[in-house]
């Protein structure tokens, strides 16, 4: 009567080392220049080597600029060292590197499935908190620290305290114009930003099965914002089709054998979860965040709520930071900038939906609008399909792939106290720039707001 998580846990359990901690086999390690380079360097400094270099991968995504014509020089002061030192360490360790100028380069969580580094049933770790995104492929994927990355590289294992299990069942289907981002924010607002703490979350039900593979990644990505240990969705034919023929996927007879095994990866119908949450997809509306935590989100037509029980200090701080009042409507708030990108919403279908909204229209005067594709593959596809041209004609900047202004690392950022609508996953204080006020929402919402110059309901067609 095991859950999918339990199945994958026991399949990878090498030894039980007491107190609920398992020594877990790690199938894939992904690294990026911001937190991975230091792990490789520190490993080498300790005289240790990577145990399975073929199963480790490094990419430049966080610190590299995303402006056209970029190089090792970065807008982030001292950023160059992250790039050059990660490159040197990856080469010395003999691991695959998706470097600047490599057409496979992109945000780690976006390129992993493109390359079929992530596989159903595999364990995958990365020193990055949004690694759970890749659970959308039926993998056990979770974020770790840099020291744990060193541990995984050196030993092919991690010491993991077994999390509890939680199932979020989505009944029914999302309405037109409502997507996985809205569903995710709806769930986070419901359970809270620590609502899944210590839990491996399985997303299940008709509303999840009906999501395409890119939307599933958006949903799993946001599970980090409710403090989930990881997120997972049982793999189906759509997942297998998305991975088949990709560079690191098994081929030929090995593929058939793998798929045969992957078809069995599902929670038993009578599996018991430690927690169950049920959400009715029909009740989900386009969502937007008002505060400085993703749980501080409301339906677009809603208003800034009053403080809940015991949360007054945090609530007040968020209101002050965001320069917003209790009871105020979100619709109509003037914006300074709009950002479409990040491992949450930078895949082809995200950009396609944004382009459909802005087609033939112009970004409002004074609004800075930026679109950053998640990977080289997404960028090329979007250019081939005319999405890029549509966005550029509307007035969006069109960038090279990377994390870009999803986060502020001392380099490029939005301006002081600017109000930004963003498809990213975090509206934390100063996340996108010094005291920048971030409102997170779907690509459609961000695109429509960019056109209007203020926050709008993306369903209100033609409003600008």
């Amino acid at each position, binding site marked *: 009567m095991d859950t999918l998580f339990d199945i994958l846990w026991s399949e990878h359990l090498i030894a039980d080392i*007491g107190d*609920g901690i398992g020594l877990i086999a790690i199938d894939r390690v992904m690294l990026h220049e911001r937190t991975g380079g230091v792990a490789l360097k520190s490993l080498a400094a300790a005289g240790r080597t990577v145990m399975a270099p073929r199963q480790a991968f490094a990419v430049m995504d966080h610190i590299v600029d995303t402006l056209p014509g970029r190089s090792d020089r970065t807008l982030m002061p001292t950023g160059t060292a992250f790039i050059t030192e990660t490159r040197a360490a990856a080469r010395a360790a003999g691991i695959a590197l998706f470097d600047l100028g490599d057409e496979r380069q992109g945000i780690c969580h976006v390129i992993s499935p493109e390359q079929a580094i992530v596989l159903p049933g595999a364990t995958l770790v990365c020193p990055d908190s949004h690694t759970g995104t890749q659970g959308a492929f039926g993998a056990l994927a979770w974020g770790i620290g*840099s*020291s744990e990355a060193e541990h995984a590289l050196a030993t092919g294992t991690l010491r993991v305290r077994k999390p509890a299990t939680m199932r979020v069942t989505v009944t029914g289907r999302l309405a037109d114009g409502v997507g996985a981002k809205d569903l995710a924010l709806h769930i986070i607002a419901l359970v809270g930003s*620590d609502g899944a703490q210590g839990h491996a979350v399985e997303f299940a039900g008709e509303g999840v099965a009906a999501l395409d593979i890119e939307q599933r990644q958006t949903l799993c990505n946001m599970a980090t914002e409710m403090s989930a240990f990881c997120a997972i969705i049982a793999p189906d034919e759509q997942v297998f089709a998305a991975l088949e023929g990709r560079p690191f996927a098994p081929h030929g007879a090995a593929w058939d054998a793998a798929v045969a095994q992957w078809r069995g990866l599902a929670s038993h119908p009578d599996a018991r979860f430690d927690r169950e949450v049920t959400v009715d997809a029909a009740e989900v509306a386009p969502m937007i965040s008002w505060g400085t935590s993703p749980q501080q989100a409301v339906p677009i037509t809603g208003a800034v709520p009053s403080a809940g029980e015991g949360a007054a200090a945090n609530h007040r701080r968020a209101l002050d930071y965001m320069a917003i009042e209790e009871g105020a409507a979100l619709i109509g708030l003037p914006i300074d900038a709009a950002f479409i990108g990040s491992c949450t919403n930078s895949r082809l279908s995200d950009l396609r939906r944004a382009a459909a909204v802005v087609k033939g229209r112009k970004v409002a005067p004074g609004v800075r609008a930026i679109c950053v594709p998640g990977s080289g593959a997404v960028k090329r596809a979007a250019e081939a399909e005319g999405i890029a041209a549509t966005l550029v004609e509307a007035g969006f900047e069109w960038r090279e792939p990377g994390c870009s202004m999803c986060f502020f690392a001392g380099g490029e950022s939005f301006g002081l106290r600017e109000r930004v609508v963003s498809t990213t996953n975090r509206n*934390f204080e*100063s996340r996108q720039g010094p*005291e920048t006020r971030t409102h997170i929402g779907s690509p459609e919402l961000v695109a429509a707001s960019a056109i209007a110059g203020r926050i709008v309901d993306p369903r209100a067609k033609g409003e600008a």
Partner: protein
Amino acid sequence: MEAFSRLTAVALPLMFDNIDTDIIIPSREMKTVGKTGLADGLFAGWRYVAVGSREKSPDFLMNRAPYADAKILIAGQNVGCGSSREHAVWALREYGFRAVIAPSFNPIFRGNCIRNGIVPVQLAAEEARTLGDAALREEAEPVTVDLDSMTVEMAGAGPFAFALEDDSRLMLRNGWDAIDLTLQHRDRIAAWREADRARRPWIYLETGR
């Protein structure tokens, strides 16, 4: 890693919930590809008057005696949430922190604490609040974290018991590195991989690209 048995030190109470790793160390303060040089960036957004400035904000508790010498942090719920950056813990450690007391911890942050010699002391919410209030009131009164008795106390508050899994306690107590501990299982790991290679051959990539 430095071993930890018992520590008596000033505690810094920052009684907010969800103190995330961006607050503990903003991205812009992570300037090097290393684990050091981070202490100046600790709580930079709260600690200095403006972004990029090093002028201390008089409003921030850590800028005032005796809290500037704090080695213990007391925080609200879900401390260390947000980005998985271990820099948050390296910055705390480099500044001198050896323990964090809170009603709940983000699990990645908690794991990073243990691996870097910082004791995560999880208490009931009222207990943490009692200590936090006392630390604010009785400015000079130190707090004691004891890994032998597994308690935390200060004059007039506690002792409160806390728990840690044996494994973590062992590492903190002896200053051990987790990799050394795991490599004691080297043969078992090799045997497991051998068997798994037959079961899931596609996991074992033979060629790099």
